């Protein structure tokens, strides 16, 4: 639970952003992010909250790690953590 997952901001309405995580869109809250966020920015999502706006020059390197993780099978523990963070898993049994 200390892993943040990067996503691209598509839209901002007040304190809620619509963020794209590899095709999965989620509403992410902006109450604790460290800098103003606009469409096109990348943020680090931790349990539904943006905890950091990722500086543009760091986006590629940050995203690449997660793409490598997601390329692993569905049973991989780290890939599972990433999927859980974007709310893509069935969380019924933890």
């Amino acid at each position, binding site marked *: *639970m*200390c*892993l*943040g997952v990067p*996503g*691209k901001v598509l839209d901002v309405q007040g*304190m809620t952003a619509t963020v*794209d*995580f*590899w*095709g999965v869109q989620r*509403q992410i*809250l902006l*109450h*604790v*992010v*460290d800098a103003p966020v606009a469409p096109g920015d990348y943020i*680090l999502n*931790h*349990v*539904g*909250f943006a*905890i*950091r706006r990722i*500086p543009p020059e*760091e986006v*590629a*390197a*940050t*995203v*690449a*790690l997660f*793409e*490598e993780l*997601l*390329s692993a099978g569905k049973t*991989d*523990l*780290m890939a*599972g*953590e990433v999927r*859980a*963070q974007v*709310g893509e898993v069935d*969380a*019924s*049994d*933890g």
Partner: protein
Amino acid sequence: MPPTASSLDRLEFRDRDQVHRLAARLHDQMQRLGGERVSVMHVCGTHEQAIARFGLRALLPAGLDVIMGPGCPVCVTDLPEVDEGVALARQGVRIATYGDMLRVPGTAGSLADARSAGGRIDVVYSIAQAVEMARKSSEEVVFFATGFETTAVTTAATLLSDPPGNFSVLSAHKYIPPVMEIVAEMPGSRVQGFLAAGHAATITGWGVFEPFVARHKLPVVVAGFEPLDILAGLCGLVDAIAAGNAAVYNLFPRSVSREGNRVAQDVLWRVFRPIGGRWRGIAHIPNGNLRLRDEYARFDARSRFEIDLAGLWQSAPSTLVQACRCGDILAGRSSPEDCELFSQQCTPENPVGACMVSTEGTCRIWHEYGGHLDLRSAP
């Protein structure tokens, strides 16, 4: 953000040659220490996942021990804290919590057991979903909140955003810096330095470790989750230990600053206050637990409900639970292989201890990635 060849080409932080160069440097450093053993501790389940997943221990010099300490927030949630959630569920109160929490054993069963017995417990991935549940309902919804400061920030932000009156929080949040002090001071502790988690430090800033370093004269290195980040962090730690330098070194500057995310820190400390409490298997940790401040008592499930624990505490732990080494593993005194139950009677399907339940638990991670991670001693 579909994966593209060009983005994969930019995997500079996972360059294989660099991994081996850093590993070679670690071997040189250890050789210069002349056979002296070096033990360092990390306090983050994600670090352990990365170390295990990428097989990094196989690259480490023989004398260097990298120990996972109390880095799994769900695992260190103490039995009576789990009991509070179980008791509320048995009293008929609707509970929402993170999936990892469901099967963590309390004194008398887990939340999953309470659910099987008819308790209403929902798994959510964010506290925001629990608030939505409360908004759509007239009944009470309690969010059983676990996690370190990174996650506590989101609980705090939620309580500052005018949640509905039928929503409350049962906080089992924990704060990492104080437990580092206790683990460093434990009798027989071999820990000579700490690897701190990058994303947690993104919020707290690396400056949060300066008082620890001043008091204990041990180095702290902040590192990210890439194999290269972790190896570079270990190089930095071994350098600092060899030179006797006690300082904080930030090797994750692409995410962590000295002051961290001030907005998030302000939100955290407006809502929470640190109090002492037990961490499962470790010790009483002064200032290690985060509780709601009195101003937020109306959202505090402990104020709102009469939680009846007495009824739960009539049964003693089973002998299997008594053989569980979770406490020693969380304190970094034992590894999963020291436990006779590990991967035998204790598996992710039938976990005995909390360390096998959570995806951030040492036992679960070692089990998932093969059970025998230290290839140096593999047959």
